[in-house]
């Protein structure tokens, strides 16, 4: 709630500057001159409902934590699940009808009579792009919450309240982070974008380190340092862009870049480059990917899943917005840069995943961590293609792939969480899983084959097909070939893992029943993945239409 308003009020104070001498000081003048009535915005509450509900749920959880007795803390988890489900439902009415936008500059523009700001400069737009990423962020958070219900319970009871996971804080942080992740894809100015990104990231640092053991603290510190560096670099870049273009609104920035005076060109270019570097950190693109495996293994497993899906989605949606909307005039430059980045990222991630040995500790999570770096490479391909194509159409492939990846990757993490509680999280612990837990093994095999993009994981295959198509369409043949080679490398390690599941059982049968929340998470993700495999159109439709 707070960041939402903060983020969207900021642009109110912005003047429409065309010249370079405008400084922040000038920002006060339009406020003073304007008719006070025009400053009272009419807010479209429907449009901002999804992040708003998540934010309200976060506050509700925090308050409820104060009053609930220790024995009833379990209810907080279900409150979180309910809040996220409600936020997801709030997406439904937005999916049909016109694109809704709010926190627009129209009033100020009229009052100050500046011609340079076009009427469409809004800070919050709930278009199809935003809705798809909000679905991913809130849906992903919902699955993570379901997954966490058991983890929080178990860790609290095992390690005692001192070292275990504190329930109230855990749920509050998760909801806050989800709020930021849901706000980000809808924000359309650089200030809101950065605030949303920080709202999504800051709670995540705490979530990683919440377990308060040595590993968790180290993981959180690594994650924190690299992320803060990224933010600093990005802010630096944004300040340059603002100086060069005189606006923070993405569409106005695009205008400003085309018409920027010659002496400001280097400034604008440097600003754009630094902003992209910042986002590359967030997506964990090469060479900013080193924090990933350590952070994932140190964090509680649901949080690792959250970072791999929702964390990645926030970085990715921000990158997509900034490149295709704001920096469109530099399309070919960042197109090439992103293409190279994509090729390097997928290769580095997959090769490192290939080198994981089954007998080392936490190798299952490490493998998923490296494979998520590889997958981030695939996700960047359509963004690169969008730089070459003159439309934002290829972005749809990224959205579709991200949705598919979100479902199956969280499913895989759910299985890892389920298996890890009994035996451990080495890859070798998965040998013979089929003999011990038939359906768990089948579900994991299905998720892994979806990630690999091999039938029967049809939805994963089509996800790759649309990404390939975006690359081929844009004339990035070499990138498509690099990706094809990477798909084969990735297939190998996914397949080795899958084959392990069906190896002869080494351990005796265990008939410990799976806790209901874990079973529900696995079942939910598996059912969604199977349904999408039968009817890929459900998710691939976002790859076809226009998103913005």
């Amino acid at each position, binding site marked *: 709630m707070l960041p939402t308003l903060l983020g969207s009020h900021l642009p109110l104070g912005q003047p429409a500057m065309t010249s370079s001498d405008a400084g922040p000081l000038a920002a006060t003048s339009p406020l003073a001159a304007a008719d006070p009535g025009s400053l009272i915005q009419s807010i479209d509450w429907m449009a901002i409902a999804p992040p708003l509900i998540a934010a309200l749920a976060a506050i509700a959880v925090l308050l409820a934590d104060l009053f609930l007795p220790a024995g009833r803390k379990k209810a907080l988890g279900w409150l979180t699940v309910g809040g996220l489900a409600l936020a997801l439902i709030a997406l439904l009415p937005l999916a049909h009808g016109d694109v809704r936008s709010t926190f627009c500059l129209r009033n100020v523009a009229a009052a100050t009579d500046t011609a340079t700001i076009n009427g469409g400069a809004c800070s919050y737009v709930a278009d199809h792009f935003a809705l798809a990423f909000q679905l991913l962020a809130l849906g992903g958070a919902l699955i993570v919450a379901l997954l966490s219900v058991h983890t929080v319970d178990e860790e609290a009871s095992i390690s005692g309240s001192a070292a275990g996971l504190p329930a109230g804080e855990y749920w509050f942080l998760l909801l806050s982070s989800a709020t930021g992740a849901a706000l980000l894809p809808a924000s359309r100015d650089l200030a809101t974008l950065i605030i949303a990104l920080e709202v999504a990231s800051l709670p995540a640092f705490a979530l990683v380190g919440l377990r308060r053991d040595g590993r968790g603290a180290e993981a959180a510190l690594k994650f924190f340092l690299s992320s803060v560096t990224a933010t600093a670099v990005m802010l630096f870049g944004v300040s340059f862009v603002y100086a060069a273009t005189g606006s923070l609104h993405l569409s106005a920035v695009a205008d400003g870049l085309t018409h920027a005076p010659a002496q400001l060109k280097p400034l604008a270019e440097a600003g754009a480059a630094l902003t992209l570097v910042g986002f590359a950190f967030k997506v964990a693109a090469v060479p900013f990917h080193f924090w990933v495996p350590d952070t994932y293994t140190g964090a509680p497993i649901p949080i690792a899943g959250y970072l791999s899906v929702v964390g990645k989605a926030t970085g990715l949606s921000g990158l997509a917005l900034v490149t295709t909307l704001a920096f469109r005039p530099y399309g070919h430059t960042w197109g090439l840069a992103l293409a190279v980045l994509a090729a390097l990222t997928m290769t580095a991630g997959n090769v490192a995943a290939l080198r994981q040995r089954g007998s080392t500790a936490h190798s299952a999570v490490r493998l998923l961590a490296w494979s998520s770096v590889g997958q981030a490479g695939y996700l960047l391909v359509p963004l690169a293609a969008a730089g070459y194509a003159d439309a934002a159409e290829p972005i749809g492939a990224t959205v579709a792939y991200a949705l598919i990846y979100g479902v199956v990757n969280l499913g895989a993490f759910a299985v890892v969480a389920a298996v890890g509680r009994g035996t451990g999280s080495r890859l070798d612990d998965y040998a013979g899983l089929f003999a011990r837990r038939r359906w768990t093994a089948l579900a994991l095999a299905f998720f892994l084959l979806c990630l690999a993009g091999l039938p029967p994981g049809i939805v994963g295959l089509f996800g790759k097909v649309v990404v390939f198509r975006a690359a081929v*369409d844009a004339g990035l043949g070499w990138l498509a070939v690099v990706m094809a080679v990477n*798909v084969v490398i990735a297939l190998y390690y996914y397949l080795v893992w899958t084959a392990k599941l069906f*190896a002869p059982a080494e351990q005796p049968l265990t008939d410990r029943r799976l806790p209901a929340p874990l079973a529900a998470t696995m079942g939910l993700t598996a059912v969604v993945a199977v349904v999408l495999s039968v009817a890929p159109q459900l998710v691939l439709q976002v790859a076809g239409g226009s998103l913005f």
Partner: protein
Amino acid sequence: MNAVLIALLLLPLLGAAATLAPFGADPEAADRRALRLGVAVTGAVLLLTVGLAVGFDHGTPSRMQAVTDLRWIPAVNVRFHLGVDGISLPLIVLTALLTFLCAVYSTKRLPSGEGTPSARSFTGLLLLLEVGMLATFAVLDLVLFFLAFEIVLIPMYFLIARWGSGQRVPAANRFILYTLLGSAVMLLGFLLIGTQAGTFDMTELAAAHGRGLNHTTQVIAALAIVVGLAVKAPAWPLHSWLPDAHTAAPTVGSVLLAGVLLKMGTYGLVRVLLPIVPDGTATFAPYLGAFAAVGIVYGSLACLALARPGAKGDLKRLIAYSSVGHMGFVLLGIASLTPVGVNGALFANIAHGLITGLLFFLVGAVKDRYGTADLDTLAGATGAALYGRAPRIGALLAFAAVASLGLPGLAGFWGELLAMFGAFDPAAGLSRPAFVTYMVIAGLGTLLTAAYLLVVVKRVCMGDPDQPAVAAEIPDLRPYEAVSWTPLAALTVVAGLWPALLLGLSDPAVKHLLGGG
């Protein structure tokens, strides 16, 4: 919308799903039930395909029949388009037949031993494999074709890696990585065609016959598709996964790998490459022909080397290399771009499926009885003397060997003859001297083929029955073996004596594809 092809795909899919259901507490009874389920489902599929063949309008085999055309994924322009014509019908029947025979054979002779999974998993994988194989020959959409192409990988991987012998896991890995790299490149070719032409529909693209695709697009797409399909076929020099996979695979896996999976590659060349990117194909046809000719000689020489006394040659490996040679004839016929050559290629496809399927069954039986497929161990000093010790198996092996070397009157003869005819007079625009050279090399290959197969017959079938051997008692043909092999032997004779049965189906369809429109 026609239910037959959908039922054909749905039936084994449901069967595969059914193997996940509990089959009773007693593992042995559960295994027996699962194997019986496999026979029942594959038998029903075979009956359906026979019904399809009977109901097929033999007057117009060039027309797509039993067509289903539904919207599936409008976002990527993929339609659920199925149909059969004279080219795919024989392959569908062959697939259903071989899978059924494998299911029957497996009820009595399933590879067992330490670490072998249950028969339920086996049945499930076999049925899933059948879905992919049938789908490959029935689909008429490029993306669907790619999908079907990929479906077979996982079941075949597990069949080799879990039920195989020797270096089975590396062999299975090699198989899947080679094929996948090939098919990923092939997909890029498909996508290029799809984005340039605006459709993935094979019939529409074939009717356009390359219109709407400029020369550069066609050349790049043809290159990508040829590479992908050549890995599968396999064409020399992309064949190196095949001998390992065959050596390690269980009998049933080898039969289906040689009998059906290799055909998916050559079928794709005929169905996709020739009609859809004719200009690109014409550019690469001479190279394809050259590789085919090299493959024929290379396969035969490798077999000769393996058949030599003292070479420690594995019989399954030998037959795998012979497949490289035989598929070389198929590729040569396709590369000639003439109706004669392509008809010959399609005929040789079916013939190779029947004969090599039979050969792998026989070699599997020999390996079961002796515990080894090593030619030197089998033969001992004089020869394994199957004629004396197990006369029926010996006779069948000799029959399959002479069929494979192309004896007139048996199935192996027509396809290779027609393929060479095609090369003798290649399509307009192709260099005649080059293709005549390929034909001469291929002719040399037939001699070498005859040489090694006769050596094999001599070393395995003949010899002194009283010499000390690895296995004391060799049981002759068992009833379940007779049941699963007789149809293949009978069809080899039928196709050899009555080639018009197949050529009448394929010829109009081939002319239609080559001519466009």
